[in-house]
């Protein structure tokens, strides 16, 4: 006990508490709030995108500014909203779930967070650079990115900083899980959320450095006369795509595995029944992670790869449906003959199940090479990835937020408003993104600021629903604010069916989760 107390008599208050903190809960809170902020920033970009696409003809901006918006919308959503959001959950929950006093490397933990605000300042400052932000799309394909204005350099260095942040954060999580578990907490006893994060962190350490190297090559081609991506010097623009997607595909699982973890915590609780097939869940997660390293080519079917390569990537991509299916089935089997109740977190979990599967199935259609020649770079793809990213990653976080908020704040949230948030989000989400499938099939390319007349009607539906979807998120912010400020006192267990160490702590939990490690039998 002594030392822990000794090092923590000083509880800095006010600004210093947040700036200098080494506490996993404070850092987790900062991650979550930052991710919410970035969600709104990138969301506002999306609102502008939808405004421009409300009718044919250029409406409120120039085409190049539109390209800047989609680039920043993609980059900020992925690196600013989704990834930090899940790291926030990891910070708050992993020490509590494995019975540790804190993260293994608390100072490093603080650094991983504080890099983010600076990195995004740099990234967003590109809007104000001569020539504006890069208009390359979040994929930053060479040679377009080699040609792009100064803003590209800001984004490149911002990505370097984000890389450092993610890698250090991931290392911290791995070390915490491998080295800080309470006695008796064997690997196969860990909650699913901890397992999914262990595997996610591995993916992060493996691919973020590759992205860093790749954008460095772009930087060299831009400023130092190298020919990595230029045929005249023996290079190849397609090399960029191979490198980017070697990072990019694992990246998309980095954004969904923690979501799987959250759902695997919520569903058993509200089914009052243990998670079905725990071992196979762990195994499925691992195989998804493994497969994610060998499917990257499915983003490049139209670049003119040799047929054998196309087939390899088609088969390996399809294969991912099997372990993912196992997960879906296990969740359904967990609900089967349970004793179900439908509080807000459960609603989000069920919404996740249904809508992620829609996204997954459309992903499977994309994996079929000849068909992908038609889908590729159309709104069909945009529909696919918003189903997996918004309804998958983002809505899992919303569910997790309602699920653990009472534990974090000590207050119950307003159930009625929570349910309203769920239904508004779900309805507007589907009205926004389902029609995009048809736009894509009918031949509307993505990344265009203006479109032919036959796409008008659906785009109007999409835009109006998108505004609704955006506004509904303000309700979420209000509920969270309300809960933080006050409300009905939450019990330690919070949910009748909740299992796991975090529920044995008080709500809100003590400053040091487990000053003395509990024993798990």
């Amino acid at each position: 006990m002594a030392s822990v107390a000794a090092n923590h008599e000083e509880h800095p208050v006010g600004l210093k508490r947040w700036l200098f903190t080494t506490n996993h809960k404070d850092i987790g809170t900062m991650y979550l709030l930052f991710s919410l902020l970035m969600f709104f920033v990138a969301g506002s970009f999306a609102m502008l995108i939808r405004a421009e696409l409300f009718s044919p003809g250029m409406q409120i901006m120039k085409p190049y500014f539109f390209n800047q918006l989609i680039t920043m919308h993609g980059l900020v959503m992925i690196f600013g909203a989704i990834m930090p959001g899940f790291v926030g959950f990891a910070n708050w929950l992993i020490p509590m779930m494995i019975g540790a006093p804190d993260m293994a490397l608390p100072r490093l933990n603080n650094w991983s967070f504080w890099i983010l605000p600076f990195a995004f300042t740099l990234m967003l400052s590109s809007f104000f650079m001569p020539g504006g932000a890069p208009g390359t799309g979040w994929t930053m394909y060479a040679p377009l990115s080699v040609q792009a204005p100064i803003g590209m350099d800001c984004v490149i260095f911002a990505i370097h900083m984000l890389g450092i942040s993610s890698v250090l954060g991931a290392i911290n999580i791995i070390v915490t899980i491998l080295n800080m578990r309470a006695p008796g907490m064997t690997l196969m006893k860990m909650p699913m959320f901890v397992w999914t994060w262990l595997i996610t962190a591995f993916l992060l350490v493996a691919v973020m450095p590759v992205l860093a190297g790749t954008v460095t090559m772009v930087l060299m081609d831009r400023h130092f006369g190298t020919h990595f991506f230029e045929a005249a010097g023996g290079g190849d623009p397609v090399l960029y795509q191979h490198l980017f997607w070697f990072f990019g595909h694992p990246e998309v699982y980095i954004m969904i595995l923690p979501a799987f973890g959250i759902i695997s915590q919520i569903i058993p609780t509200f089914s009052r029944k243990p998670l079905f097939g725990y071992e196979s869940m762990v195994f499925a997660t691992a195989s998804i992670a493994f497969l994610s390293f060998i499917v990257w080519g499915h983003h490049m079917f139209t670049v003119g790869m040799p047929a054998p390569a196309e087939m390899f990537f088609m088969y390996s991509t399809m294969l991912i449906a099997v372990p993912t299916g196992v997960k879906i089935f296990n969740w359904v089997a967990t609900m089967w003959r349970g004793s179900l109740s439908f509080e807000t977190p459960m609603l989000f979990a069920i919404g996740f199940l249904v809508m992620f599967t829609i996204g997954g199935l459309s992903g499977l259609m994309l994996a079929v090479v000849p068909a992908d020649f038609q889908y590729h770079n159309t709104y069909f793809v945009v529909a696919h990835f918003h189903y997996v990213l918004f309804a998958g990653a983002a809505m899992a976080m919303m569910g997790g937020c309602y699920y653990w908020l009472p534990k974090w704040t000590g207050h119950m949230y307003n159930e009625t408003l929570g349910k309203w948030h769920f239904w508004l989000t779900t309805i507007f989400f589907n009205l926004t993104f389902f029609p995009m499938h048809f736009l894509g099939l009918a031949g509307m390319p993505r990344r265009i600021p203006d479109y032919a007349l036959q796409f008008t009607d659906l785009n109007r539906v999409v835009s109006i629903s998108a505004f609704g979807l955006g506004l509904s998120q303000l309700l979420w912010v209000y509920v969270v604010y309300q809960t933080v400020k006050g409300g009905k006192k939450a019990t330690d267990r919070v949910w009748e069916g909740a299992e796991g160490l975090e529920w044995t702590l008080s709500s809100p939990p003590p400053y040091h989760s487990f000053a003395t490690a509990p024993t798990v039998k």
Partner: protein
Amino acid sequence: MSATHDHYYLPSPSPWPLTASAGLFTLALGTVLTINDLGAGPWVLLAGGVIIAFMMTRWFGQVVGESEGAAYNAQVDMSFRMGMAWFIFSEVMFFAAFFGALFFERHYSVPWIAADHILWPGFHAAWPTSGPKGAAFTPMSPWGIPAINTLILLTSGATVTWAHWGLLKSNRAQLIVGLVLTILLGCSFLALQAHEYYMAYTHFGLTLKAGVYGATFFMLTGFHGLHVTIGTIMLIVMLVRSIKGHFRPDHHFAFEAVSWYWHFVDVVWLALFIFVYWL
């Protein structure tokens, strides 16, 4: 003291992470401005460097203090070791990106370009190459400086291990001599590498601009050289600490971390020697 040993050490709030982030930002912004020669670029860059250097001395200084003050128990030590191991893995993946580029361009893009008689008539696949439009250059022969550098690094790997043995059987002299030798070898490696670059640019026409060979050659050897530099600096710190009498046979994570890093740099060089210079 004894009490601290059965509890995991949780550091108190620290200003250094925030300083580090600000330093990174300044450094990055400075670089952006400099390479686009805008405004006070170099000065911002310099400021960033200074902030980082200052932060590092203070942050690491604090950690060294805690370590020597026996604040860390075995579990903390294990956290550090795991952390370092995974960090090195991330470095491996960073180099993997550039090796990947090397393999792809050598085995795919160059042959594809050569096979294309419409756009690139008269270009024949060969390696090394600077591509159909690249300037002519002479590639580096592996059996000159590179071979010597290979020997140097391998020897330095041995000397650092020898130093470690010294530390383990608490033979300070051996520890210090071993470190000094390793540092000297590291410096001579860098000197030779610098000379090689000088020759490349002045006599062989081998520059960053020399097509894919020049690009991959300088990016791979360059980043490796950077890592050798960092490694040497860390070795010097270890030397100073050893002279100050830091480290115990059962408690010297920092030293081991540095030697792991040094071995990693060593292995990367072997890969470089084989795939960049030799084959």
